[in-house]
Each structure stands twice: as C-alpha cells, then as structure tokens.
C-alpha cells in the first residue's frame, strides 16, 4: 500500500512538473510583450485627460521621459501615438513627417477626433476566423461611397481611366512606406505581376482580376510611382472588383521581403537552404506559405495596413503600423488604437459570453441576431451598447430550385424547370410569419433590395402569400391530389421535395417553416442540413433538387461583383449551377444554356456590362438582369435584408451605425476607432 502510494505520488509530481515546464517554456517561446504604452492604465489617465489638453508641443518628449505619465495619451492635440513618439525620441524611428507619404489620405472621423492608445479586443473562433477578421484592416486601391456608385482613391493616390476603358493608370503616393520603413513603389507591383501572378509555377493560371476578353492584362511600370494596367477589352467592372473586400486584387506584396523566397530573384543555394529548413518540397510551396494573403499567419511580412501582425495566435496580436498613410482631419496620424488583439475562443457561445461580460471592445463577428434580447438585457452590466446596423446584404432565407438538376428523377426535373411550379412555391410562403419567427420581424421586403425596379411592382406579384393561387397553379400543371390533399407524382406516390440546407440554425429553422407552408399546398419536403465540408461537393455535382441559403444583395454597381445570385455566371449560381459553370469556365465545363433562353440572355447582358465604361448604362443593364431574374422566378424568395449586430463598449467610439457599401462583413474605417479615456 505504502509503496504504491509513493509510486503514485511520484507519477503525479512528474506529470505536474512536466506540465509546468511545458507551460513555462511555451510562454517563454512567445516573444515577451513589448513595453506597453501606458495608455492602458485607464484609471490614472482619467483625471489627467481633462487637465492636460492645454499642453501641446511637449507631448513627445514628455511621454518619452516618463512612460508612466500618460497625460498626453488622452490629448487630442498629439500628432502621433505616444508609443511612437517615445520611439522617435529614442532614435528608433524617424520623425512623423518622414514616415507619412507626401500626400497622406485625410479621413473624416465619424464622431470626433480620437485619442491615441489602447487595445481593441475582439474574439475569434480559430485561425480561419482570425484570417476572416483581418478584412477589418483591408486597404483596397479604391473605395466606393455609401451608395456604391461613386468611387474615390484609397491606397492609390489617383486612378485614371483611358477613354476606351482599357487602360487604368494608378499613382502610388510618393513617400508611402511599408511597415518596416521600406518605400512602397511600382517595384512591388511588378514583383507581384511578373513573379507571382504571371508566373505559371506559382499561379497555374493568371488571377481573374487580370482577365478580360480572354487575355491577361499587361502591367507596366511607368516610373517609381506610376503603373498602368492595360486590358485587351474595355473593363467596366475592374474598379468595383478591386474595391470589393473579398474580391480579387492587384496585390500589394513587399518585394524586398519576398524576393528571398523566389527562385527568379534569390540566390539558389540560400533559397534551397530556406526550403529545406522550412520543411517544404520546393520554393513554390515556400513562397506560397510566406505570401499569406490573409495576413494572420506570417508576422515577418511587412504590410501597408493600419496594424501589423506581431504575434501569431492565439491570441493574434497586431501592433500599429508606424508608417500608416492616413491622418485625421487635424493631420494626426492614424490609427488611433495602438493594438488590435484577437482572443481565441473555441466556440461561438463564448464570444457571446465575453461580449456580455464586457470583455470585448468591439465585436460583430459570431454575434447572432437572434441573441438580441440577451445582448439588450445585459447592456448596462457589461457597459456596452448594441448597434443595430441595417445591412444591404444578404437577403433572408432563399431557396434555389436547381433548374440544371442532374439527378435521375425525370419528373422532378420537369417540375423544377416549370415556372408555374416555382411560382406556386413562392406563393405558398407566409412571409410575415417567417419574418416574425426567424428574424424577430426585423427584416425588410424583398422588393426593397431592388431599387432599380421600384416602379415595376408587378415583378414582385409572386412574392405575396396566396396558397389558393399556388394550389391553382399546381392543378394547372396537372398534379393530382390524394385524399389528404397531398400532390402525387405519376407513380401515384406523394411528391417529396428534397431540400439541402446550408449549415446554421436560422437556415434550418426557416427551411422547416417553408416546408410546413409547402405542406399546406400538398407538397412534402424532406430537409437535410449540409455541413461546411460537404456543401461544395454537393453543389458541384448539380444533383441537388433544391438548396436553401441566402441571396446576395450588395447594392449599386457592386452587385456585379456578386452577380451569381442574379444570373447564372458562377458555379455558385445555385439555381443554375451547370449554366454558371459553363459561363465561368469559358465553355469548357458545365452546360450551355439554350440560345435565346433567359439564362443565356442574362449571361450576355453580363458580358455587355463588363465592356461598358459608362456606369449609368451599367446600372441599366443591371436592371435588365434583375428583371430577368424576377420574371423567370429563378428563386423562391422570402424576406429582404436585416441588420447586423455590433457589440461595442461604451468608451469605444467612432463606430458607424450603418454598414457601408461593399464591405458588408467589415468596417472600412477601423483606423479612426478610438478608445475614450
């Protein structure tokens, strides 16, 4: 007995010791946090904030001398973050005017000029979510205004379009620098163009953004700050595509950092050593891993964004970029916030709890609209506010009857292709009830998402609730009913519609509701929830009869970048995937829609829009495509757009209460958020 106990105690100690060692070494491995800017010590700053505002020029030196005195941190007259001022004073960083471009971007703040410092805490559910979250600091070449119709330069100082719409000349800001202080020039663009985009080893085919008229564009560097992109055909959708947060891009990669990983530039032996050391098979794998388009896995890569990754997570830590190229209206360098930190949680519910507990400064990802009552109730205790930002994308639950159904049920195929059947499915839905039950009654009408067709209400006639009309249509098709009113197929069995539902509770709940409406008109539905990993193979097979997801509805010209929901132009045009694949692949895969069919017409209109330079004409074409969509009842539509929920700490300011064009999942103005002292 005694012996055994000793043995056990020994084992226990050994484990504990090993664990402790492991834990300690683990935290030793991650870089020690840099000396925190004292702005974090909120209590000390409270009073100082009011009294110190008169003090001006001495800000830099003073905070450099005593890092615990953060009086200046809350002073809106400081031109740069005290954290950087300190480094400048210590000679580790050039002064502000050498770091800013000659012509920095001036950002209009949303509420007021901010104070520097602080940490923006967010929660993510893992690496994939962290990658997605980096869209908050996306820097597109151009951005669109609220209406999605007018663009203005952002990363570019200017963009000029030739009269024929084929050549786009971009100007980079003189003196614009990477986060490590190296200049950002056309050399970086040419490195991407020659070394990455057009290099068949790294990119088996050139990126879509460069393609027009079946040929890749030619990029030329005119001087250090000017380059031109020339397409074979006029490219009317080039700029909306560039602006779109999730779109393709003329990538900005730091050539001075990446060249060491590229066979065309690097010394062969040194490169071979790097490949070997990283455990890669060849240099292509190596550079692919380093490119890191998501900017959340490679802390070594310099960036142009407001914050630069310094620690790979969890937690992922981004520190302010001292060379960031934007200033506020008072000429003070942005971003206001020093550090952006993505805490890791393992489950969405923990995001909810952290938000309620006030541990997150600003959170919109993984925040579910249906939890609104919970968030509202705990506002005071958690010291946060709930921003309900109306969003223009996407529409509520949408069901896509697959009109390219490739399964072996001929009868079902006939039904899905019959416009009367699709109309009946639409007419059967009680949209008010669905809105109430699934979306807290908050979503708008479908028609609101079609501003271009506002004066053609007859297009939306099938979006009313009229089960009798639906039954009449089914009678007209010739579907017999049994004694319970269930519709029968030619074999005399009740018809069962099978519906694949995208993974997620609101999709599943909504689909169950829809299934019950269809039962009212005599159609049974069998639902299946399709998990992430199985979704794509399922869509790709074209064998699903119907699928439930959402319809995209980004507004204005930007709707073209997500046209898949309106015309069969992509393999994810769920109601016509074979046609979409045909279009997308340039005719090598999928099926060609019959000539003169509405689907083909929609594709041709898209072709036309691409080579149209005049944006008014582009909107006209868009209206025509939308009209085709509604006239032919390509989808079963339920309700319109709703709101996004943002949980924002009360001292976290300058957060807009709308979602802007294009950037539906993110916020373009994160750099001017600030934390009030």
């Amino acid at each position, binding site marked *: *007995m005694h012996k*055994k106990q000793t043995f056990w105690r020994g*084992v*226990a100690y050994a*484990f504990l010791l*090993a*664990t402790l060692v*492991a*834990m300690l070494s*683990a935290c030793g491995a991650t870089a020690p*946090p840099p000396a925190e800017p004292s702005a974090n010590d909120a209590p000390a700053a409270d009073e100082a904030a009011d009294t110190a505002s008169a003090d001006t020029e001495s800000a830099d030196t003073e905070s450099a001398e005593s890092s615990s005195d953060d009086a200046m941190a809350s002073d809106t007259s400081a031109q740069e973050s005290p954290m950087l001022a300190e480094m400048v004073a210590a000679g580790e960083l050039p002064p502000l005017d050498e770091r800013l471009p000659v012509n920095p971007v001036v950002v209009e703040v949303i509420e007021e000029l901010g104070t520097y410092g602080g940490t923006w805490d967010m929660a993510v559910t*893992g*690496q*994939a979510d962290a990658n*997605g979250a980096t*869209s908050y600091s996306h820097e597109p070449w151009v951005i669109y205004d609220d209406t999605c119709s007018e663009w203005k330069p952002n990363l570019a100082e200017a963009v000029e379009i030739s009269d024929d719409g084929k050549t786009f000349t971009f100007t980079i800001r003189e003196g614009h620098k990477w986060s490590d202080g190296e200049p950002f020039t056309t050399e970086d663009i040419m490195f991407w163009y020659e070394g990455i985009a057009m290099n068949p080893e*790294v*990119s*088996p*085919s*050139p*990126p879509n953004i460069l393609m027009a008229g079946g040929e890749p564009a030619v990029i030329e560097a005119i001087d250090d700050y000017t380059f031109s992109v020339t397409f074979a055909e006029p490219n009317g959708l080039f700029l909306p595509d560039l602006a779109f*947060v*999730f779109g*393709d891009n003329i990538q900005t990669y730091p050539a001075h950092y990446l060249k060491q990983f590229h066979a065309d530039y690097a010394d062969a032996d040194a490169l071979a050593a790097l490949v070997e050391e990283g*455990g890669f*098979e060849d240099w*292509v794998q190596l550079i*692919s*891993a380093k490119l890191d388009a998501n900017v959340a*896995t*490679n802390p070594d890569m310099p960036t142009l964004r407001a914050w630069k990754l310094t*620690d790979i997570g969890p937690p992922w830590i981004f520190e302010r970029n001292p060379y960031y190229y934007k200033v506020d209206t008072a000429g003070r360098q942005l971003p206001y916030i020093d550090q952006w*930190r993505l*805490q*890791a*949680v*393992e*489950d969405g519910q*923990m995001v909810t*709890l*952290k938000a*309620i*507990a006030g*541990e997150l400064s600003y959170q919109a990802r993984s925040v579910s609209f249906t939890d609104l009552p919970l968030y509202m109730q705990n506002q005071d*205790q958690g010291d946060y506010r709930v921003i309900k930002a109306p969003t223009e994308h*996407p529409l509520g639950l949408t069901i896509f009857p697959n009109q390219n159904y490739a399964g072996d049920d001929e009868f079902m195929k006939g039904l899905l292709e019959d416009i009367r059947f699709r109309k009946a499915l639409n007419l059967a839905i009680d949209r008010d009830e669905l809105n109430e039950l699934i979306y807290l009654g908050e979503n708008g009408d479908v028609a609101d998402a079609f501003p271009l067709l506002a004066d053609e209400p007859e297009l939306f006639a099938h979006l009313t609730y009229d089960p009798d009309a639906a039954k009449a249509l089914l009678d007209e098709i010739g579907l017999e009913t049994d004694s319970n009113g269930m519709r029968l197929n030619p074999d005399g069995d009740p018809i069962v519609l099978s519906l694949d539902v*995208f993974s997620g509770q609101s999709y599943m709940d909504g689909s169950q509701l829809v299934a019950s409406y269809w039962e009212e008109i005599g159609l049974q539905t069998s639902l299946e929830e399709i998990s*992430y*990993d*199985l*979704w*794509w*193979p399922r869509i790709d097979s074209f064998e699903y009869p119907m699928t439930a997801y959402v319809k995209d509805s980004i507004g204005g010209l930007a709707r073209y970048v*997500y046209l898949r929901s309106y015309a069969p132009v*992509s393999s*994810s045009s769920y109601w016509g995937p074979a046609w979409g694949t045909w279009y997308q*692949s340039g005719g090598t895969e999928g099926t060609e829609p019959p000539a003169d069919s509405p689907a083909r017409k929609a594709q041709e209109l898209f072709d036309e829009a691409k080579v149209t330079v005049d944006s008014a004409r582009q909107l006209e074409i868009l209206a025509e495509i939308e009209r085709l969509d509604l006239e032919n009842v390509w989808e079963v539509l339920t309700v319109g757009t709703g709101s996004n929920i943002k949980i924002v700490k009360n001292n976290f300011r300058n957060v807009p209460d709308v979602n802007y064009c294009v950037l*539906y*999942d993110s916020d373009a103005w994160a750099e001017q958020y600030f934390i009030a002292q």
Partner: protein
Amino acid sequence: MARYIVQRLLYAIPTLIMISLVSFAIIELPPGDYLSSYIAKLEQQGSRVSQSELEALQQRYGLNQPVYVRYWKWISNFVRGDMGMSFEWNRPVKDLVMERIGLTALISLLSTLFIWAVALPIGIYSATHQYSLSDYLFTFIGFLGVGIPDFLLALVILWWAWSTFGVNLGGLYGPEFIGEPWTWPKVMEVVKRIWVPMVIIGTAGTAGMIRTMRANLLDELPQPYVESARASGLSETETVLKYPVRIALSPFVSTVGWMLPGLISGTTIVAIVLSLPTTGPLLLKALLSQDMYLAASFIMLLSILTVIGTLVSDILLVLVDPRIRFDDVQAG
C-alpha cells in the same frame, strides 16, 4: 517478461500500420477535401475563390496528387518525426499540438485526481454500508454526475457564475492576463478557474469508479482473510483499509495505462464549451475542415499512445497482481 514485452511490441506493428491507413482513410472518406471546406467557409463570409486561386492552392497543398502518393508522403515523414504542416494554421502540426498538450495533460490529470479523491471514499463507504440509506444517497449523487450531459452543465455553470458573481469563468484566465508573464497572480488566476473543468469532467467519471470500487470491495469483504484480520483484534477501519481495499484497488492500477491517450484528448466537449485551449477542440476543428495532416497525425499520435497505454496496463497488471499469469494477458 522481456520476451513478453518484445512479443507485444511486435504485435503492435501491424496494428499501427492498419491504424495509419485508417487514420488517413478517415480524412479521405468524406467527399471533398480541405479546399472544399475552405471554399464553403469563405462562401459563408461572403468571399469568392477564383478558379486560378483554386488551382494554385491545390498545387500548393498537393491535393491534386493521387491518394497513395499523399499517404506515402505523410507516413514516411511521420516515421521520421515530421508530422507535416497544418493547411489552416500554416504552421507545423508538431508546434500546434505541443502548444496545447501541457494544459490538456494538466486538466486530465487534475480531473482524474478529483475522481479518485471523491470516488474511492464513497466506494469504500458504500461497500461497507451496503443497501443503507447513505449507500443509496452517495450512489445517487455519483450517478447524477454521469447523467447530466457535461456540455450543458458547463454552460449552465458559466452562466450561473456570470449572472451571480459577474465573473466569466471561460478560458484559462481573464482577459487582463493575456500576454502577461507567468507571475504569481496569473498562476492563482488559473488555479481559481481550473476547478470548473476539473469538476465537470470529474463528475462524469466518478460513478463508474464508485461502482467498480464498491463491487470489488464487496468481493473481498467476505473473504476468510478479512475475518482473520478482524479476529486478530484490528479495528474495523484498519481491517477494511489494510487488506481488502488494497486488493480492490489493483484493477485501477492497471487502468493507468489507459489514461495515457486520455491525457491528451479526454476533454474535447467540455473544453469547447469552456473555451480551454486543449488539444480536443483542435482535433475536432481539423476534422471538420479536413485539415488533412493535422488530423491524421493527431489521430496517429493518439493511437500510438493507446497502444503503448494498453501495453503498460497489461504489464502493470502482471506486476501488481501476482495471481494473474502471463498466459491470461498475453492476448489481451
């Protein structure tokens, strides 16, 4: 003895080869691959992946190669100690696993200790007071722990702690300690929180333990040697604790080997709800996103530990309980 161990190790080789095939097959079985789940995930975020990007990714991850090529690449590297790269994290699998293994082992160990501390006394008490009211009561409490689904219990505890005390018990420490060095307050913070998973995981395990202990002890109590110990004037407590309990414990010693894989994987569900950075959620996510090398290497690692654990158990069993001869365990 040495011959027995060698023989067992030889048997383990074909088993491990089979397991490696199956671990890989598990990742290959579902339709699609990492890219298809990657695309679907981006899809949900609103992103698009172009055909050219897709081709580049396929090439980069080697997903366009035939299955047997990928299997061979993986297993030959694995044998050399290279577990491959995770697609999603863009980091070596080894780093990802090592980062989380310490905490996982700590939590598993603590909950095991908790189970023993609770279950053994109750088991002994129940056996010596069979069919008494307290026997029923303790057994009831023990079973209650098994019956409550642990994910729900964890969530309810989280909410209760927040709504009553205003404390968010999720995670290993509060947000104010993120990135801080391991100072005393931080260690204390961890100690303050770690009882939650310990108790939740522990409650699920106590019932089985109580039941086994009670039954084993009931077996021993009527034995003649207990009678003679009692007759020789030992107090009742001494009589029970000195011999029968000792023998009743021996099966537990043999299960220590089985704890080995559990130490690094036993906490998936509770860890997900409580947001603890253990290995379980990592594996689950890897499986869901078909992050091939991360999942396969992880499964392989667990399986090897299980095989070793079984061997350790069997050897311990022989060492602890001389009544068992090698013949009996040879095949088991």
